[in-house]
């Protein structure tokens, strides 16, 4: 069984393995033991903290194969970006250049370094071992977070964002970075990404272009990458679009990957899940696929199973994994065909 639960310090070796195989493709998952242990520590402290409104908390979860004890995936939520350190995006605006005399009216897109998403919650650090990358596992790893948010709305902001990794070639070379960021950082993309992960982000303001960058001055390759997710992110993007996320022309400052946003309350998994009283017994023969979770914090657990939509019944094993007893309340999100 695959079980979704908060990271604990026991997960450090497993997490490090994932960080290494992710190959530095994710800013928030650098292969740096100090940083990873910090990430676990933040999760545990955030779960223990009593929160009235989101501030500096962050939550990271493991997807554990309960048969082997292996961690096969990780995903996280940041309660509010831009609070302890600035959170930058490029906003793509159009600038109009017009000459009435010449009857010319040009609309020139330009990238503006901004902090418009300051205060929003963020889904991040989604990574799964290649051997387990099946749609169902992806849904579990990504959407179990949304059930956690539904259970603890006071811990998250009204605006929710996700940054999708941008286009890069097989060597993790981003055409957008090569054209723009490299000029300002004097280093390659992987190094910049790694440093961003382990350092405070103050230096971004020191290094990145502060004036708007005119899109037509970028290479064609870089222009083509604007707002485009990396090929292996397309499934994630579709999942998020189904959830109600939209792209509003904000892109990542390093690789120009799109930032998707949604109103937290309107995210499908947040608004459409229902609560049931737990019944333990014979599992359904022909059930409907669902995510099931408890409403815990450190004890938060979520798994995917088929349930009878009319009378959802958990098996003993499922109930135990979810740490639920007969009569407790459980949260169920019915899924379509995956």
């Amino acid at each position, binding site marked *: 069984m695959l079980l979704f639960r908060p990271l604990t310090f026991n997960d450090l070796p497993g997490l490090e393995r994932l960080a290494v195989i992710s190959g530095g493709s994710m800013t928030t998952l650098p292969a740096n033991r100090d940083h990873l242990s910090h990430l676990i520590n933040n999760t545990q402290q955030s779960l223990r903290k009593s929160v009235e409104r989101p501030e500096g908390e962050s939550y990271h979860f493991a997807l554990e194969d309960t048969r082997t004890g292996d961690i096969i995936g990780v995903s996280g939520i940041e309660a509010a970006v831009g609070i302890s350190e600035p959170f930058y995006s490029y906003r793509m605006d159009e600038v109009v250049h017009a000459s009435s005399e010449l009857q*010319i009216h040009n609309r020139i897109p330009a990238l503006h370094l901004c902090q418009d998403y300051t205060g929003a919650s963020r889904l991040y650090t989604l990574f799964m071992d290649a051997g387990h990358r099946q749609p169902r596992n992806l849904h579990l790893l990504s959407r179990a977070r949304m059930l956690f948010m539904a259970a603890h709305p006071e811990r998250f902001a009204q605006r929710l964002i996700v940054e999708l990794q941008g286009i890069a070639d097989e060597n993790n070379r981003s055409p957008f970075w090569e054209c723009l960021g490299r000029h300002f*950082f004097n280093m390659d993309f992987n190094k910049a990404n790694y440093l961003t992960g382990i350092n405070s982000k*103050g230096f971004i303001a*020191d290094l990145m272009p502060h*004036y*708007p960058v*005119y899109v*037509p001055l970028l290479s064609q390759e870089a222009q083509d990458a604007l707002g485009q997710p990396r090929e292996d992110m397309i499934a994630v993007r579709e999942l998020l679009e189904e959830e109600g996320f939209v792209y509003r022309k904000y892109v990542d400052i390093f690789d120009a990957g799109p930032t998707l946003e949604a109103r937290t309350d309107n995210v499908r998994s947040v608004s459409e899940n229902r609560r049931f009283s737990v019944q333990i017994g014979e599992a359904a023969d022909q059930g409907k696929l669902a995510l099931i979770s408890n409403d815990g914090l450190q004890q938060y657990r979520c798994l995917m199973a088929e349930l009878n939509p009319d009378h959802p019944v958990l098996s003993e094993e499922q109930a135990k994994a979810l740490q639920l007893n007969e009569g407790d309340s459980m949260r169920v999100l019915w899924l379509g065909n995956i």
Partner: protein
Amino acid sequence: MMVVRPIQADDHAALRELARKTGPGFTSLQDNDEQVAAKMESALAAYNPDSIPEEALYLFVMEETDTGEVVGICGIESAVGLSDPWYNYRVGTLVHASRELNVYNQIHTLTISNDHTGYSELCTLFLSPDARHSKQGSLLSKSRFMFMAEFPQRFNEYLIAEMRGYSDDKGVSPFWEGLGRHFFSLDFAEADKLSSMDKVFIAELMPKNTIYTNLLPQSAQDAIGKTHEATTPARKLLESEGMRYTGYIDIFDGGPTLVSRTNDIRAIQESRYVKAHVTDRQPEGELYLVSTTDFRDFRCCMTALDLVGNHVVGLPQNVADALKITEGNTVRVVPMSSGRRF
């Protein structure tokens, strides 16, 4: 004897003839009746002794006094940018550095500016090809400094001169190709033609936000502040008088603008009044500019002199005749070129 003097109404035919020789690169004096007539008119209006127009175009011609032939023209705009804005890109430096990451990065930027608004401008210098010898080009160009020294109230505290920017063998400007082209729906030839008439529209369409030059193609970066080959001698001449490239370039072709405080121009600063003593002797040695103190009848020649003490110079008769002065008149003199003081 070559003499430089203000243009007059009866120079019209000569000016028209001169304009025929300039060629397509010389946008300020084209082979075009209307333009010549308009120049003539505004120049004649400028030479009004009773008032100081805010914007005046002072035009001068170089005349061979023996034949009466006009062989060159030069001008000064008293103030640019007071009707239509005067645009430049200013080349700036930004340092992006992070101690934390041990990164240090100098980045050059281009910013739209109207910083030269109100400045005086050297303009419209053209010398007939057969007259380009014996330092006559220097006389034509530098005679303007003598006029400015004589009538400082008619000019701004600062003086600029725009140098034509670099373009390749095919006449294409890499600066334009790398930057301006992206913001226009026009090709270079068309934009070039339009820009010769009116640069305001270029500024309307050019990017108003600061540009990072490192995002431009290398060829465009290399053209920033680079002078067209044909204009290099003119640049050297003005630099020898103290004008300097201070980071302002043409928004169209990236050519440099040279700037100086007007009073810091060597010829203006060093020139002084002396009494003319007309002699039969033909002096030898260092060449000087000699000019009269008249406004409408301002005249400037180039000649060797006899320095007689601090306040008198000996001039040969032919120079006195060309300047229309007589014994004892006051004239302004300055050595043609800079040199050691001690």
